[in-house]
């Protein structure tokens, strides 16, 4: 597993991973979240656990169980931490705690370091036996409902440290608040190198011609991703450049507005033969990978975003990406260096035209984008950072350590 990253990830990251793993050899490392499959956290853990194991760390991954009432409560907690108004009653908080208590009776919580992912299993801290306990928050908490955060933080304050994805998501609490950005896996189906034949299979499947430049946005049909805005930007460009727009994504199953948004997009597209709307089924990772590789310019014109890892996925294919200046996108796109940040439909149209008319700029930007992802957003860096946090917490009080 580890060897698959050699020649892809930065040498220093791989070396440091090995050095830290040697320091933490046979020490136990427990991750706990609330789902084995689906969602970014499970996806990363699936890749990360075997690699850490191979490096000699006694790593385990446990998943808490809960009934629909529990998950309905935690969904509300999640949404309110992202800023949506939700009412979480004392009784609901009690149910949250009791479910975790039941899980604590069944789970082996004994480990040298424990990372608890997101709010669902946060109360497990009450059943800590020993070791360093870290709460890892993957949620955009830049503007939470304070009442909900205050209730949750009674648990969080008991941890040894927290990890947030972006500095602006971190809350002011009197424990260490580390910032570790999420990452993509360069050897996964979504990001690995593809052969020409594999790419051709996707082109044939969707009957995509390669006779004109391709503008691509891969995202759910969700208002926050502004697919209608993308079509409007495309209309502006079409006056000047002949090109094809591909909007690829799955309908948002958990979003009742998903169908309405898709209908709106189709209406805007008005059977334009140069607009291709692809409804992808789940597990279309290879097709998404292929589409990104054939695109000339990739968009992520979000108007609200969490971290927006699809940006790094596109950048990893060596493409110039134009992204909305929201959420974690500005951390990935350095404006004018690794892509362009935009704040309007007109801005998106202008930057697309700029790139279509300047292939050399597009190529240079794409190359820089790929290197930026290599150095900052690969899974090996995230694993390295987790081990670093563990190592630093074990050497408390020192800001500089030499291995």
């Amino acid at each position, binding site marked *: 597993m580890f060897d698959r990253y050699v020649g892809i990830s*930065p*040498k*220093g*990251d791989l*070396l*440091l991973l090995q*050095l830290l793993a040697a320091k933490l050899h046979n020490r136990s490392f427990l991750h706990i979240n609330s789902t084995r499959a689906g969602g970014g956290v499970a996806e990363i853990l699936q890749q990360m656990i075997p690699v850490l194991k191979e490096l000699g760390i006694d790593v385990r991954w446990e998943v808490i169980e809960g009934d629909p009432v529990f998950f309905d409560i935690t969904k509300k907690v999640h949404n309110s931490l992202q800023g949506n108004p939700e009412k979480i009653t004392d009784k609901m908080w009690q149910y949250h705690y009791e479910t975790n208590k039941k899980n604590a009776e069944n789970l082996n919580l004994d480990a040298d370091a424990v990372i608890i992912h997101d709010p669902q299993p946060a109360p497990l801290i009450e059943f800590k036996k020993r070791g360093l306990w870290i709460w890892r928050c993957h949620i955009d908490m*830049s*503007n939470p409902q304070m009442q909900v955060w205050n209730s949750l933080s009674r648990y969080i304050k008991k941890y040894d440290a927290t990890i*947030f994805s972006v*500095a*602006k998501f*971190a*809350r*002011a*609490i009197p424990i*260490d*608040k*580390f*910032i*570790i950005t999420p990452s993509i896996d360069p050897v996964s189906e979504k990001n690995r190198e593809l052969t020409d034949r594999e790419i051709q299979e996707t082109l044939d499947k969707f009957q995509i011609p390669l006779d004109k430049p391709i503008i691509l946005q891969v995202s759910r049909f969700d208002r926050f991703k502004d697919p209608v805005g993308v079509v409007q930007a495309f209309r502006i460009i079409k006056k000047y450049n002949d090109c094809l727009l591909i909007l690829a994504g799955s309908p948002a199953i958990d979003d009742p507005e998903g169908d309405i948004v898709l209908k709106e997009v189709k209406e805007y597209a008005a059977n334009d033969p140069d607009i291709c709307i692809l409804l992808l089924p789940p597990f279309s990772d290879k097709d998404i990978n292929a589409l990104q590789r054939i695109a000339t310019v990739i968009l992520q014109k979000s108007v609200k975003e969490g971290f927006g890892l699809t940006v790094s996925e596109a950048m990893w294919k060596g493409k110039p990406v134009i992204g909305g200046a*929201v959420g974690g996108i500005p951390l990935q796109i*350095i404006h004018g*260096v690794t892509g362009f940040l935009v704040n309007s439909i007109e801005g998106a149209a202008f930057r697309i035209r700029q790139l279509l008319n300047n292939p050399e700029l597009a190529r240079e930007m794409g190359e820089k984008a790929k290197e*930026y992802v290599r*150095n900052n957003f690969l899974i090996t860096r995230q694993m*390295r*950072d987790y081990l*670093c*946090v563990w*190592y*630093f917490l074990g050497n408390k009080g020192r*800001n*500089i*350590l*030499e*291995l």
Partner: protein
Amino acid sequence: MAEIIQSFEFKQCISILKSTGRKARSLRDLRNVIAVVSVECIFHHTYQYFLKGHILEYTNDFAQWAGESLEERALSEQLSNIDPYDFRNIDDLRSKLLDVIDDYLKEFPKPRETIPGNEFFFNETMTLIFPVGIRARNLAEFLTAIKYIDAGSIYYHFYEARIRLGKGIDDFSRWIEDVFGKKELVERIRAIDPFMYTIKRIRAHIVESIEDEVRKDMEVIDRCLTGM
């Protein structure tokens, strides 16, 4: 017996970011927080700016934010002109930052606030230094190594060394001076302005300087002719 040459051990450092939990919405906020944050925080937003691997319009995070988010471009230029390596310690650097902002606030007492989400977030870092397992015993090996190592290693030996060694000295030129006494090459490397280049270009400059030196050492024809 062969002469024992002190070899150059390449190291690298990485930094793990930590939030201080403090943020600034306006220039006055920025000033007030700079006055009280840890030295690690000031260090991160000034010296470690170069660890990012790309130089934007300005030369530290405070200047970048003042220019981009507050659109106080004159202040950004003044803050950018502060060279962190000119100061004996970080508190002196902090005082200079405060002086520049205070002077600006006297002239423009009501600067704008940034939009929500674009606040300045004060961070600090924890740094881990580790050997990269590469050693050079002569300039030819050094040349190969400098092309091969990660950017983080260049940062450690070229930027971070200036804080450890002081007086604008980096690890590379010090080793060349101590071991080979090549004054001209040393001066060439020390003349590289860390403010003006990305790590990529610094690597290219060092490679070029050393290649010239190695070539000079290899070319014996001049010496042969002189000896005739």
